[in-house]
């Protein structure tokens, strides 16, 4: 291209900087997921009802009387979040696959990692909404105050770790023949550190343990989040390539 035409082209249609176009593409994917959910409400309602059922099952399986409850609250909460999260992840990626939406997304002239981060943030928002609704419900049902800033931080960090790996693995799982059963099998062994650290840290905050005992678990969550965000960012291209 000659210099004059290059200038002309850039004058008529200013090319956005790579970062802002990345953010815009990512925002569009998130927006699409939120709008679709707002209209159908099938994902959130399923996750919420499921989460509530898990809590009810725990109530009778563990006989959550006030004495045993104190020690297992963190565990019950996290198992609920993780099961509901798996449900959401599978559905969120299956929708893309079934209706051929994934192909449409891939055809768009945008960075593939923008699709990944868009989907991951969308999934994270859904998981956080479920958690925000489950927490007061749990507080109400068991007469326990769960609104502690520390616990909120753990829930955010733990959900991020779970979702960054989960979105990557769900993208693979929905492309397999055995997709309905595959995601938990792929995800749980890899996400075990998140569960352990989240339960321990949540428990620490709920029991008001000294910060020195909680800190290692928080560090572990942060390390996990960083490592797997970076890995997912690097390998996502290979997971959606046709």
């Amino acid at each position, binding site marked *: 291209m000659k210099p004059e035409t290059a200038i002309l082209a850039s004058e008529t249609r200013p090319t956005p900087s790579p970062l802002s176009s990345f953010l815009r593409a990512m925002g569009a994917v998130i927006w699409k997921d939120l709008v679709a959910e707002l209209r159908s409400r099938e994902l959130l309602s399923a996750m919420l009802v499921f989460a509530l059922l898990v809590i009810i099952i725990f109530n009778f399986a563990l006989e959550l009387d006030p004495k045993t409850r104190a020690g297992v609250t963190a565990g019950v909460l996290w198992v609920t979040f993780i099961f509901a999260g798996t449900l959401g992840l599978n559905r969120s990626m299956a929708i893309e696959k079934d209706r051929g939406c994934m192909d449409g997304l891939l055809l768009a002239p945008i960075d593939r990692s923008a699709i990944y981060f868009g989907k991951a943030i969308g999934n994270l928002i859904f998981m956080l909404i479920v958690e925000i609704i489950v927490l007061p419900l749990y507080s109400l049902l068991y007469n326990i105050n769960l609104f502690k800033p520390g616990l909120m931080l753990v829930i955010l960090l733990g959900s991020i770790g779970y979702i960054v790996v989960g979105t990557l693995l769900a993208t693979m799982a929905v492309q397999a023949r055995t997709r309905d059963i595959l995601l938990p099998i792929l995800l749980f062994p*890899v996400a075990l550190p998140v569960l352990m650290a989240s339960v321990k840290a949540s428990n620490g905050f709920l029991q008001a343990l000294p910060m020195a005992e909680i800190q290692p678990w928080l560090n572990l969550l942060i390390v996990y989040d960083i490592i797997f965000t970076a890995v997912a960012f690097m390998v996502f291209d*290979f997971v959606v390539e046709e």
Partner: protein
Amino acid sequence: MQTKPRWLSVLDIITVILLIAATAMVFFYAPTEAVMGQVQRVFYFHVAAGWVGMLAFLVAAIAGVAYLAKGNRKWDIVGLSAIEIGIVFAFINIVTGSIWARPIWNTWWTWDPRLTTATVMELIYVAYLMLRQGIEDPDRRARFGAVYAIVGFLSVPLTFFSARLFRTIHPVVIGSNEAGAQGQFDMTPLMLQTFMFSLITFSFVFADLLWHRIRLGQLAEKVEQLRLKLVD
């Protein structure tokens, strides 16, 4: 037709000799441990099998990176071969550990970091195979396998680290022991020699099996191509 490489035959023979020698050393050369007695002899192959299990995982992760970078199918076969061998050795590691733990810890199983990590590693191996089984397209199967091998490999140290923040009773025979470890012992020179010899032997077993398995994978691929040619 591809004939068996001469070096592979040489490696076969060396491996068999080493394995016989290592077994003999474990039973006749290494002294009986004073406190634990005969059951301690399981230690040599127990650690060696665990070593191969981890080595296989490392090889699979490296093969995964190489496959994603180069796109050469050879690396996919290497990764799958390593995982298949790793499954067997990680299982040997867990079973021999249980046999030792029963008399020493008075239980078959405990949720110790090493035990937990070994089991989770085994589950990741199994998940890897299940993922591959569910995908027909060989190209996609290879890519997904590579990605999962990398993700799984990175998560294992984190699992170990988080399980370690819980209390542990597993003895650390090499390096410093945590307070409260049960069944620890100091190795005499003869024990150390047997131990090192077992490690080397199992590394040879791994290399030999890996080579055979990769060759099998390549031959299977060739058969597949010939069959496709016949259909055309």
